[in-house]
């Protein structure tokens, strides 16, 4: 019997007793009266009793009918409310130990769990990480018998986040102890994302860069931010009628929009080969960098988003920087020339014999002038590479010849460190496609490093090998080797295996960083193997030059962001 029905019976108890009493006592009175008097004498009493009984029975039936009707209405309304709740909300029930005892279907749909996976588990299974403070507050509130409202982040089975607005209602027993709690949640994830989108749009709108969005099919503009509208002289009402043909982003030499050039640039995006393409264009006679993406939303048409940045200031700044570096390099080299020249002449004995001590001191000064010159060269070289302005003149180069030249160039180093260079496989005809001067610089660096880090009287082995598509060169010393800790950073700027090496052996620590960049910018690879106490082998591979290889010039990509 339901709680509602038993309460109804209690409420109507006196009425029921009266009804039963009349029904039982009425016939009893008739029966007694029948013995005492004749039937006609008691007939009015009998009729009255019978009528009263009938009225009571009718009244009772009426009340039963009335009760059933209202009971049905309540049940029906409750069922409706429950259905509405289940359709709208994610509902869970947990016991006093936060174990899950009930979950509705919508909760299962939203979280991806099955009922079996949740029932009996701690509710922490679906709480998002970092919710400890909220959980603590929630439990304290529920234990105090109060309801709790707030925003709760849930974690789905596959780790996705769901934002919910949640109401917790506690169920408390007679002793005021928490028995269970029901949580009713509204999923507000989409609202959150929409608010986020709105904020992003607002930020885009006031961005200094120009932003253009246009449909991939028609190339008609769907959105221009404030800066873009100002630059075009359009507003919200005019730009939807325009397409990129009316924005002189891609005006070719014939003063007509170059649609082919546009699709050539956009092809990698259309073919899904990359997420973004970047190119420089002259727009309104100003150098501009255009970054373009193709957005394919789940709902709606695909569109291009182009971010246009005016590079005039950037170019002007680079020009100033170039001039500055050039001037500084000149200003630094001029005194170095005087110092080196003067020391060289004195050391040569042109002004008479020097004492051994004076000779030693001047040797140190001379060596350090050399070093200063190298530092200036390294800094300039790195600066150029970093700014992406180093040009590579690729041509077929005889690698054996280049290595021979580098060995001759490095003679002073080998002599100073008393090292013998042992070449291997230097056969003519190993033709490599590279920039001769840059690879000469690479060889110079590797050879001088190998000499510097060899033991006195040691050897430096050079190997040249022709592979299927590449030319392989290795330079190996048998010195101290590179420690395991230093191996990870050996190609980083300002790194030497041991920072004290920089002073002891000379050099800036920029050399290997430059070498790596020079090789990689020419489609080559460089790496090394080193065994502590046994020496180091640097090896690189460059593309082989084929008979039909033409000479070409490439510019480095900008790696200024490094």
């Amino acid at each position, binding site marked *: 019997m339901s709680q509602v029905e038993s309460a109804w019976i209690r409420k109507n108890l006196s009425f029921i007793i009266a009804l039963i009493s009349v029904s039982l006592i009425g016939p009893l009175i008739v029966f007694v009266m029948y013995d005492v008097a004749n039937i006609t004498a008691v007939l009015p009493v009998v009729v009255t009793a019978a009528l009263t009984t009938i009225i009571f029975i009718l009244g009772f039936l009426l009340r039963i009918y009335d009760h059933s009707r209202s009971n049905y209405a309540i049940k029906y309304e409750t069922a409706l409310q429950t259905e509405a709740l289940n359709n709208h909300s994610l509902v869970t029930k947990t016991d006093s130990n936060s174990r899950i005892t009930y979950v509705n279907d919508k909760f299962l749909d939203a979280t991806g769990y099955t009922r079996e996976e949740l029932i009996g588990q701690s509710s922490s299974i679906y709480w998002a990480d970092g919710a400890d403070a909220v959980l603590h507050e929630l439990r304290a509130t529920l234990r105090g018998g109060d309801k709790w409202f707030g925003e709760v982040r849930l974690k789905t089975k596959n780790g996705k986040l769901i934002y919910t607005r949640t109401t917790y209602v506690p169920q408390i027993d007679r002793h005021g102890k928490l028995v269970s709690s029901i949580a009713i949640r509204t999923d507000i994830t989409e609202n959150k994302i929409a608010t986020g989108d709105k904020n992003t749009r607002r930020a885009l709108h006031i961005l200094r860069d120009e932003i253009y969005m246009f449909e991939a099919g028609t190339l008609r503009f769907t959105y221009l931010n404030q800066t873009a509208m100002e630059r075009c002289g359009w507003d919200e009402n005019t730009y939807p009628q325009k397409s990129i043909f009316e924005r002189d982003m891609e005006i070719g030499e014939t003063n007509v929009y170059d649609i082919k050039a546009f699709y050539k640039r956009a092809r990698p995006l259309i073919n899904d080969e990359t997420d973004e393409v970047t190119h420089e264009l002259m727009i309104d006679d100003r150098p501009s960098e255009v970054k373009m993406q193709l957005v394919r939303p789940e709902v709606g048409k695909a569109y291009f988003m182009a971010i246009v940045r005016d590079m005039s200031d950037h170019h002007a700044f680079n020009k100033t920087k170039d001039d500055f570096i050039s001037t500084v390099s000149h200003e630094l080299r001029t005194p170095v*020339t005087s110092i080196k020249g*003067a020391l060289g002449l004195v050391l040569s004995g042109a002004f008479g014999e020097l004492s051994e001590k004076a000779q030693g001191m001047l040797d140190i000064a001379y060596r350090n002038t050399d070093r200063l010159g190298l530092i200036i060269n390294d800094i300039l070289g790195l600066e150029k590479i970093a700014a992406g302005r180093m040009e590579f003149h690729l041509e077929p180069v005889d690698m054996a010849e280049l290595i021979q030249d580098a060995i001759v160039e490095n003679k002073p180093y080998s002599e100073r460190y008393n090292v013998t260079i042992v070449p291997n496989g230097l056969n003519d005809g190993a033709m490599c496609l590279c920039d001769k001067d840059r690879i000469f610089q690479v060889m110079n660096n590797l050879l001088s490093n190998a000499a510097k880090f060899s033991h006195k009287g040691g050897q430096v082995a050079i190997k040249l090998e022709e592979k299927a598509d590449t030319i392989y060169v290795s330079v190996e010393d048998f010195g101290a080797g590179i420690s395991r800790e230093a191996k990870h950073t050996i190609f980083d700027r300002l790194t030497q295996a041991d920072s004290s090496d920089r002073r002891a052996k000379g050099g800036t620590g920029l050399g290997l960083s430059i070498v790596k960049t020079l090789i990689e910018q020419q489609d080559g690879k460089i790496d090394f193997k080193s065994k502590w106490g046994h020496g180091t082998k640097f090896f690189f591979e460059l593309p082989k030059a084929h008979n039909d290889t033409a000479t070409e010039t490439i510019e480095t990509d900008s790696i200024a962001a490094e």
Partner: protein
Amino acid sequence: MSLKILHVEDDLDIQEIAKLSLEAIGGFTVHQCVSGQQALDEVIAFNPDLFLLDVMMPEMSGDTLYTKLKVIPGLENIPTIFMTARAQTENIVLLKELGALDVILKPFDAMLLPEQIKTILATNS
């Protein structure tokens, strides 16, 4: 008779070192000027066999001086070597395109400078 070199260099220290190197070690005859204008004024009187020109000089740069020297009758075929601290490849290429025999980079080795000049002249003769 030794080779006569007209050396134009605005830095007096470098001038002195180069003079010592070219005369004492190389055995050349050297006449030095501190500016392009001085060189233009004195070139005819000296009648050099070779121009050795610094590039970055105030008032008149080495390459401007070169073009001015080249239009003086009788000097059209005098070989020229530039000296520069601007070691970037493009600068060297530009100077060679202008007509220089070669470019010697600063800082140069004073002991090897005469040898370097002789090698350049021999290669281009």
